[in-house]
């Protein structure tokens, strides 16, 4: 067991030296979580926009549910997707359990509520401000919804970043449906969990450093987008 200082030193060498093993894990992580973020956006954004501008029975209940699902425990999502995709499960014939595809699906399920709930809030606030004007100009629902999405695009972008950040940082879902197979489904968070329990601290710490940097970069990006948009578009 190496000392903490040595572990940090070794981790730093791995990160700065672009160690191929570490790079492959980071790359797969980004690939999986980015795919999940894109898929979740394609589902969550229209869903959020529809709930924002439509009035239907059970709407309030759906909003409460969606907000509650933002705090969905990743392991539970992992378990559910595992049951769906396992050989005996309803989608077992796809044969994608323990593949990156399964991980993308699990993370998508995890962050759809986040993207849907937050974009619902953003778009509904805009709708409250714009609705009379848009209706006066003769915009129908669909057109109005699209206008609102376009007008709040910078706020929505930061929501997507939040979703991506959540996906990249979770461990429970990908661990269960991915199986943490070396070179195939091993991502940053699952590797950290495994290597820590094995006692290989440099790799775990190195990935930890990358993960934290990623989170910082994402937040800086979100702040920058807000700032620029505010200055340019008011």
């Amino acid at each position, binding site marked *: 067991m190496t000392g903490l200082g040595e572990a940090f030193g070794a981790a730093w060498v791995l990160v700065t030296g672009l160690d191929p093993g570490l790079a492959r894990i980071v790359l797969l992580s980004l690939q999986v979580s980015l795919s999940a973020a894109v898929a979740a956006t394609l589902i969550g954004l229209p869903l959020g926009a529809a709930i924002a501008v439509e009035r239907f029975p059970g709407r309030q209940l759906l909003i409460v549910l969606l907000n509650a699902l933002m705090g969905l425990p990743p392991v539970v999502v992992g378990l559910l997707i595992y049951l769906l995709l396992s050989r005996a499960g309803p989608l077992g014939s796809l044969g994608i359990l323990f593949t990156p595809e399964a991980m993308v699906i699990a993370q998508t399920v995890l962050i759809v509520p986040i993207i849907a709930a937050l974009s619902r809030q953003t778009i509904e606030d805009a709708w409250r401000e714009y609705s009379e004007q848009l209706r*006066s100009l003769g915009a129908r629902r669909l057109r109005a919804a699209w206008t609102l999405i376009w007008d709040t695009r910078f706020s929505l972008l930061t929501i997507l970043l939040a979703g991506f950040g959540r996906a990249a940082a979770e461990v429970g879902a990908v661990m269960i449906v991915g199986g943490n197979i070396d070179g195939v489904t091993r991502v940053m968070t699952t590797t950290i969990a495994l290597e820590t329990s094995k006692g290989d601290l440099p790799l775990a710490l190195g990935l930890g450093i990358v993960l934290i940097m990623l989170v910082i970069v994402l937040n800086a990006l979100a702040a920058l987008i807000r700032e620029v948009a505010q200055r340019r578009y008011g």
Partner: protein
Amino acid sequence: MLPLALDQLTFSVGATTIINCISAKIEAGPRTIILGPNGAGKSVLMRLCHGLLEPTAGHIAWQGARNRDVRRRQAMVFQRPVMLRRSALANVVYGLQLAGKSRRESTLRAMDVLEVVGLEHQAGRPARVLSGGEQQRLALARAWALGPDVLFLDEPTANLDPASTQDIERIIQAIHASGTKIIMTTHNLGQARRLGDEILFISNGRLMEHTPIDRFFKEPVSSEAAAFIKGELPWH
């Protein structure tokens, strides 16, 4: 499409009656001012006429216009202009494209109108960074560009300084001169005098008078209107 006939128009929210059985005929031509104290129901009446609110009882009828065309042939400018996060020009183009105009046609028309309201040099600037007065002029341009038969204006200068107010009033006169019917709410007597030809005086959701402007100021019929003109609070 005028006259606009209001028949026992009523609008309530829960137990509160905001517009109480108003009947009136608004003819083409004269600039109509809907006057009254704050909370009288002016804005709600206007929204009912424009179709943004559904009456709880009574009817609104536009002469000889099919329902589908009615919205197309009217426009509204709100007390607080709502600008989209895009350029001033794009805001005007947006309305025109919703009305079915091509991009090229819309852009040409939008540039013309921006020039008339004195915003041609701001065309490329984001609408939301314009000053309050400029935004309201832009809102007028956006409405005017549509070439409406009727233009509703809901307290268009309530939040503006005197210079901007003057600009807005000049533009409203120009829109009137171009043949568009003006229907405007205000609680400002000076503005009513400057811009109005006839007055609909509303108090507590009821139509108290519907008279030519001179008569309204010289010999108001209702005690509420007389009190309002004198600058007294009508409910005291």
